[in-house]
Each structure stands twice: as C-alpha cells, then as structure tokens.
C-alpha cells in the first residue's frame, strides 16, 4: 500500500470543526476531472492529441471539399516539385496527380481503417473478456483457449491471407481482417479487470442492493474495467494504421487509383531511383500518426490510472 501523504486539504478535513469555524468546503474533484488534470500535465500527450486532431480534421475536410481531385491525372503537369505553387503545395507525381490531395485522401483511408479496426478489436475484445471474466468456469476456459490459438497464429501473415483471398483492395476486408485477429489483448485486459472487480466493495454493494447480474456486469463493472482498454485501443490505432500500410505496401491492401498511405509507397523500387520525393510524404505521415497515437496512449495510461496522484511541482 502506498502511504497517503497528508495534504493541506486532508488535514483541514481532519481538524475538528467548531461551531465558530467557517466550514471550508474542499472542492470535490470527480474522476474525470482528475483524469483531465493528469493528462494536461503530460506535455507530449497534449501535443500528440493536438496533432492527432489536426490530422483527423485534415483527413475529413480536405477530401470532402475536393471530391475526386486526388485521382485526377494531368499529363501536362507531371512531377511538379513541392512548395512551388499554392494550388499543389506538395507537387505532383509522374501522372500529374496532386500529391497533397492524394496524401489527404490516403490519410483519410488509413485513419478510417485504423479507427474502425480498433472499434472492432475493442468490441470483440471487451465482450469476450467481460464474458470470460464475469462467468468464469468453462466459459472462461473456452474463451481463453481461443485466445491461446489466436495468439499462436502468425498474425500478419494471416491478415495477408484473409485480405488476399477474400477481396484484395476492399477497405472493409482489411478492417475486418485486422479486427478479428487483434482482439486478444483487449480481451485479456478486460478479463483481468473483471476478475479483480468481482469481489470489489462497490460490486458487492450493488449485489447487496439486489442488482441483477447483467446490471452489475454492464453498469458497475464494465465502466471500471475500461481504462486499460482505452489505452490499448489508442496504441492499437498506430498498430492498425501500420498494418494497413504494410498490407498496401506489399500490394494486398488498398490498390490505386484509391489512395492509402501504404500504397503511395508501393512503387518504391522505381520511385526510389527516379523520384524519391514522392516517398517522403506518406512516410512522414505514417510516422506522425504512429508517434501521435503512442504518445497519446502513454498520456492516457498515466491519466487514467486512479492510483496515481497528481505530483505537485
């Protein structure tokens, strides 16, 4: 157990209150206020959140405003260098497509796949983990054996297989492939939390008050068990974006004329010799997304942990 240092606020509470004293109300801080306060202290995480928001907004707004512009070829304006004109700030590629519009569209595709894959991962993982942890017994045993099998599979190769056999180039196949192979971590985290919470005071209190089993699981235990999943899901965005990019890079994911961060790197063997500049933008964008998601995840991990107290600086 961690020793609780007496703070100014706590000694004030403990001091006897006489009639003449004015009762000094301590501002009650809810869990989420504490989380926000702890998160804001994490400077890199705040920058990462800001960066992520900027990337997401750009990925939504630019392709929506410019429509099919990212796919438009123009053979009179090929290989324009970047930073030369305002109309195409990142230049054009060898078939005259605007690199900025392509990059934004690619970011939209990749982030969409990344976020949706994480949604599936979280949904499957939380459901199975909660069932395993709540019911225990043979149900737990069956689910954990499935986890063992999935964990033993060569995941990336399996994703390549699913995507290749069931629909090359379809974003939803990519999402489902990443989703159904990636849920084991979330499942184990939620299961562990549920096992811990089964005998927690507030769960027993709810039971004593006559709450049904489903209500206890869904309303009392689940919210308390979600913190590690939120962190894992944030870090999972980075993994899913990289997986999608790797798939498209190898030629299995999204194929041109659609744009994804991975397929913009697909012609690297030729590009690297003749026009390496085209490889810079998608690479930098992938690294930015990965960095943003991992710092965000780290910040959330520190912020969501209720056992951590705010250090006074």
């Amino acid at each position, binding site marked *: 157990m961690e020793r609780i240092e007496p703070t100014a606020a706590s000694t004030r509470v403990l001091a006897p209150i006489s009639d003449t004293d004015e009762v000094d109300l301590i501002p009650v801080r809810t869990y989420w206020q504490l989380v926000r306060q702890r998160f804001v202290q994490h400077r890199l995480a705040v920058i990462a959140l800001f960066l992520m928001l900027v990337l997401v907004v750009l990925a939504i707004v630019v392709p929506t405003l410019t429509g099919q512009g990212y796919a438009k070829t123009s053979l009179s304006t090929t290989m324009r260098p970047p930073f030369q004109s305002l109309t195409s700030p990142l230049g054009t590629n060898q078939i005259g497509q605007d690199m900025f519009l392509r990059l934004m569209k690619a970011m939209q595709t990749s982030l969409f796949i990344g976020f949706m894959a994480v949604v599936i991962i979280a949904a499957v993982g939380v459901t199975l983990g909660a069932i395993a942890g709540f019911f225990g017994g043979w149900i737990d045993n069956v689910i954990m054996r499935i986890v063992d099998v999935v964990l033993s599979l060569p995941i990336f190769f399996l994703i390549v297989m699913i995507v*290749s056999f069931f629909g090359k180039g379809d974003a939803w196949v990519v999402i489902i492939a990443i989703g159904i192979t990636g849920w084991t971590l979330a499942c184990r985290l939620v299961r562990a939390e549920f096992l811990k919470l089964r005998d927690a005071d507030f769960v027993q209190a709810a039971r004593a008050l006559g709450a049904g089993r489903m209500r206890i699981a869904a309303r009392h235990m689940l919210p308390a068990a979600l913190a590690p999943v939120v962190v894992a899901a944030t870090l999972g965005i980075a993994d899913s974006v990289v997986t999608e990019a790797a798939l498209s890079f190898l030629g299995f994911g999204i194929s041109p004329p659609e744009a994804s961060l991975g397929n913009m*790197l697909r012609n690297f063997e030729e590009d690297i010799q003749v026009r*390496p500049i085209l490889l810079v933008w998608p690479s930098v964008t992938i690294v930015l997304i990965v960095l943003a998601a991992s710092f965000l995840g780290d910040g959330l991990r520190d912020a969501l942990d209720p056992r951590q107290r705010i250090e006074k600086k």
Partner: protein
Amino acid sequence: MATYVLRRLIQAIPILVGISIISFAIVHLAPGDPVDRFRSGRVSPQVIQNLIRLYGLDKPILEQFTSWFTTFWQFWKPEAWGFSFIDGRPVTEKIAEKAPTTLLLMGTALAVTTVVAVPLGILAAVKQYSWADKIITTLATIGYALPSFVLGVLLLFTFNIAIKPGSPLHFPGYGLQTLGVENNPVDIAWHLVLPVSSLAIQQIAGWSRYMRSSMLEVLQQDYMRTARAKGLPGSKVLFKHGLRNALIPIITLLGLTLPSLLGGAAITESIFSWPGLGYMAVQSVSTNDYPVVLAIVMIGGAMVILGNLIADVLYGFVDPRIKY
C-alpha cells in the same frame, strides 16, 4: 524439467489443432477453388473433373481436413506438405531450400540486436536522466515509430542510391549475393548489412526500452543495496547481481521475437529482395499457392509455441526461484 517440457508439448497439441482448423478454414472458405486457374476454354471439363479427383476436392471437407492434417505430421516424407500449385515441387523441399537464408538473416539481426540493445539499456538505466539516457530514449522512440517498410526504404535510399557505388558506405540492396559470385561469405555479409540493419534498428529500439526499465527496477531492489553495502565493487554489483536479474524480461522478448521475425521479415525481405521464407510466403499468398500457404501458417504457429516454451525453460535456468 523434462516432465514440464513434456506437459507443455502435450498442451500445445490442441493449440496446433486450432491453428490448423483456422488456416484450413480460411483457405477453403476463400472464393474459388485451386483448380480455377486451369479452367479455360481450352481445357476440357473431363480434365477439370480429373484434377478435382486428383486433389481430393470431391471428398467431404472433414475428410479433406483429416487427410491433410494426418499427413502433415509426417514431415520427413517429401509429399507430407503437398506439392506447390505453381511449380509442382514438394512444399517441404521448397521450404527447406529457403529456410537457411531466412535463418541467416534472422539470426544475424537477433545477434546484432542483443549485442547492441542490452548495453544501451544498461547504460540508459545506470545513467538515468543523463544526456546519454536522453539520447538513447529519444532514438528508441523514433526507431519504434518507424514501420519496417519506411525504415527499409529509407536505408535502401540512403546507402544504396544516394551514396553512389564506389563509396565505402555504399551497400548492396538486392538479393543474397552478387550475380556470378557464388557462396562467397564476404559478399553475402555485404548483402546482409542493409536488411539486418533494417530489422535490428527496430528491435534495438524496443529491446533497449525494455532493458532500461527492467534494469531501473532491479537497481532499486534491496539485494542491490545489500551487495553494495557488503563492499562489492560497483561493476560486480551491476553485472553479477543486477544484470542477471534484469535479463529475465529480455528472455520473454527473445521468445516473442523468434516467430515474429517470420512476419516482420516478409516486408524486409520483399524490400531487399532477400530470397527467404517471408518473401516466399507473400508470393505464395498472391499466387494462391495453398499448400505452401498452409505449411507456412503451421510453421509460424509451431514457432510461436516453441518460442514461448524456450522462453519459459530459459526462465528456469536464469532464475532459480522458478521451479517446474
């Protein structure tokens, strides 16, 4: 120990069965069938029927599965893993041919990783918050954020294209050896530099972070203070008492790295055209070469189980508190 290993191997059987069911199911649920590529106007329906009978595709799916699964384990026979749809050669032969090149790449990368990451992690932990620690931690974060294909392309561009041939910093970026030069160790080592760097940089980034946090935890332990208090020289405290305990979590990484290199190597091998298993795996998927695909999934699964087992057995050796 022997009974423990035996028990673990028995526990692995249902997992392997699960892996084979999943991989078999994916291959068989895939639209189309293996004889599709023979179907054309020039091939008579009778030939197609014969092919279907030859491959056993007319039998019920359960029977197909059991016959594949039971022959799969007789891997000393050349026909055990079936024959490639592409060139008709036994799958065992194709895999045995590519395995050494992948092992050479994986092994070298793993060795480089261990040799570099462990000292870096120790240095960062012992000199916590120093400039050395800050540089190592920052580089590790960047290395961790660089996906293997970005890193590979970056290395290829820098050391193969931007730096022109003739410079001592120019490295080959294609294949296992120079055309016309056969089995020359120096030439192969030269070709290894870029793919190994690509794999190792990523692993070093991850491993040095683990090593640092593991060492930091050990440094705070009571036994470290005891060792120092009884007058042992600093280096002895650090290496005999500290390092051996700090290495325990690294063993898990070792176990995890063993199989994941097969998947990670697929990308690196493709970038550097390294003729190994990862490259072949990707090729076999894109050409629907199902026997090869199935064999590779099964090998991958077996390697995961083996990696975990090796890690657990090694735990027993380095940590006498763990008894089996």
